[in-house]
């Protein structure tokens, strides 16, 4: 039974593979002129602004967030790299801040300050309940706390 199942799985996988190959052949057979070209036009100024896009539409806002994320980068290179690893979380607070501000702008700043308040020894008391513990080969045991959880 097991042997037949194995052979069966081999057959199905080979059939799937053939299917993909044929798909590729089909795509390559279509002349390049008939393929849809990506729209390279700039977004109009009155376009609906999504959460992730708003940074690029307002120049001052864009510069402000760039300034903060740039300063976080400088901190990471000049200061953080010379310090021992003291952050309890994965991603680390500076990485969290960089990601949050890049993604959510002003709201990301609040998220970062919230994270700084949460990064303490007591966080380990609620590990397993609110944070999952993961093992990083370089940094050891850390609490997993992604940005999107606090959006």
């Amino acid at each position: 039974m097991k042997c037949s199942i194995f052979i069966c799985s081999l057959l199905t996988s080979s059939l799937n593979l053939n299917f993909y190959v044929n798909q590729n052949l089909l795509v390559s057979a279509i002349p390049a002129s008939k393929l849809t070209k990506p729209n390279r036009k700039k977004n109009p100024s009155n376009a609906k602004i999504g959460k992730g896009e708003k940074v690029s539409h307002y120049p001052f806002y864009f510069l402000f967030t760039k300034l903060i994320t740039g300063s976080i980068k400088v901190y990471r290179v000049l200061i953080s790299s010379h310090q021992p690893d003291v952050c309890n979380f994965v991603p680390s607070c500076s990485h969290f801040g960089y990601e949050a501000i890049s993604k959510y702008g002003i709201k990301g700043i609040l998220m970062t300050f919230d994270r700084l308040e949460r990064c303490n020894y007591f966080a380990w008391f609620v590990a397993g309940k609110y944070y999952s513990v993961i093992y990083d080969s370089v940094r050891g045991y850390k609490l997993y706390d992604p940005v999107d959880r606090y959006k």
Partner: protein
Amino acid sequence: MILLLIFLLVDPVEFGNYLFERGEYRDAIIEYRRAIFIGHPDTIRILLNIGRTYFKLEEYKEVRETLQKMNSDTANAIIVLSYFCEKLLDSAKIFIQKIKSKELKDNLLSEEESLKKLKYRKPILAGLLSAILPGLGRVYADRPGDACFGFIFTVSTGFGAYHYFRENNLYFAIPMGVATLLFYLGDVYGSVASTKIYNETLYNKKLGEILRAYTELLEPE
């Protein structure tokens, strides 16, 4: 030729179940669909298995699309569980009413009631508490350790800002003031977010208990 014969002789439903047990859910669905395509007589069982596989993949909309037309107790119960997973309790109740078995219906109704009666905390109240006293909202959100640190950060930077303003040292006072404001707002934001996470954790814990109770329903036949 022999390989092709073996391929045709193996029951695709059995093979699908084998793939399900191995955790290869996408391939299991392909096998179940193949079984329907070749005219397997046990269509109801296969459709239930497809629904179960989508449930494992957490694609609840697909679960409902597959099982909605079957109108059997098992199918309806799986649909109810899928609604529980998506926190759509009112929709779940509609399908509970369709279940004919009294025991199953009563059990699912009590589960639905228990999910509704969970002691959720209010994120707005947490935000207000933190606005009144930094850290208080976090205590409400079941994070007393974070509350201590939130309070210490906000008060210490606030005290520093006050101290430097009194000394007319604006070079320190302004950054300290900005830090105080950000820690304060961060605390309010964090309290609201932590309360939402508390509610989510509470719901997921109860949901886990319910799903464990109905494991047999979610295993392929």
